[in-house]
């Protein structure tokens, strides 16, 4: 859910863009972190752990902890808490370590 009114803050958001999450169309704002756009769309499970396949969300949101690695436009291990959203991005839940192409 997005904050529309805040007693102290105003939010400068980019233009609205479309992207897909696991094939499903979603909307977000250009330039915001992918994780924020997903969260605003109700997506909290971003990846699954490598060995036990446990669901994972983000943890630190500033690019330190690597809890939020996803596959973006085919590239695995993208830190979506700091990677900026762009029009038409293809975002997928990552399973395992990801492969080099």
């Amino acid at each position, binding site marked *: 859910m997005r*904050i529309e009114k805040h007693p*102290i803050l105003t939010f400068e958001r980019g233009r609205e863009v479309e992207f897909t999450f696991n094939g499903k169309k979603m909307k977000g704002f250009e330039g915001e*972190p992918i994780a924020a756009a997903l969260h605003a769309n109700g997506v909290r*499970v971003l990846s699954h752990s490598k060995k036990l396949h446990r669901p994972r*969300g*983000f*943890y630190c*949101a500033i690019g*330190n902890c690597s809890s939020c690695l996803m596959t973006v436009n085919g590239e695995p291990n993208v830190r979506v808490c700091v990677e900026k959203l762009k029009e038409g991005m293809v975002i997928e839940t990552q399973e395992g370590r990801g492969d080099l192409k």
Partner: protein
Amino acid sequence: MIKTEVAVIGGGPAGLMASLAAANMGANVTLIDRNSRLGGQLVKQTHMFFGSEKQYASIRGIDIGKFLASEVEKNPKIKIMLDSTVVAYYPDDGVLGIEVEEKKWVKMKADRIIIATGASERFLPFENNDLPGIYGAGAVQTLMNEHGVLPGKNVLMVGAGNIGLIVSYQLMQAGVNVKAIIDAAPNIGGYWVHASKVARLGIPILTSYTVKAAYPNEMTGALERAVIWKVDDKWQPIPGTEKVFNVDVMCIAVGLSPLAELLWQAGCQMVYVPELGGHVPLRNENMETTVPGIYVAGDVAGVEEASSAMMEGQLAGLSAAKSLGYDDGSYEEKKNEVLRELEALRSGPVGEKIRKGLSKVII
């Protein structure tokens, strides 16, 4: 190879002040930050700061960040590199390796380096502590205050230090319900002014409680329920004291650890100081580490507040410039003023832990 006199790594409160201090003495500074904007974690601090006018007391953190960033941008002696991550320090020749954009790398040789990389959020061990919905308190602040997205509906805050208290208040401000703040310690760790603010909002603060377990929603896999229990005076949980909270968010605010990778790479002598959040570098009064020419400032030198980070940054910036021969005659006076400010910030019972920690690292 890029050359600079003073490289400042990290554009948060410490790095901004370090850049300004060094540049104002006459040194050429390059400020490097991995984000697209300056300010570090000041950008999410909506509360007003304490301290003296030297640390911009009674101004909101976000506004301090904007002000310092604009001062840095205006300063002709400071070159700013954004979206740039320093990933390596080569001890043989003192060269920095920097990723300047996706898969593009540059090298930099600086006469002096000020490392102000900050800290990262700590974690807490309990059953199912990896569920989506269990976030660092700072992460929730980033999501909410920087990006305008709510973390969820109902929150359990773990940690009654300043971050736990402040973020709880900010969550309520944004319309999120904070069910309780818990802390394993028998006392509230944060300032009373922050504790009273959340108490006035009716949020219960449960001391001597820790998290027993978290449970997921079976459909979504994300957090749905948290169970806490009481701990005795030896920090052992007491069975039968469990309380259950139906929450979709748990915030972990149990402290920070210095982001000291570059210091390790550089071979700075490190020492484990629990009072300062973990491994921190030995340093002299001027914030210079055991590797000559490498200075530290802010949370990476020991986790404290943004106010002291600013003062340490100033001290490191002044000292680095002075060691390069830049001194308009005001060095001693400025340095002594900063030292006095730091002493005041760390005085009294609140600063006791920090003073104890610092006594182990200043050489």
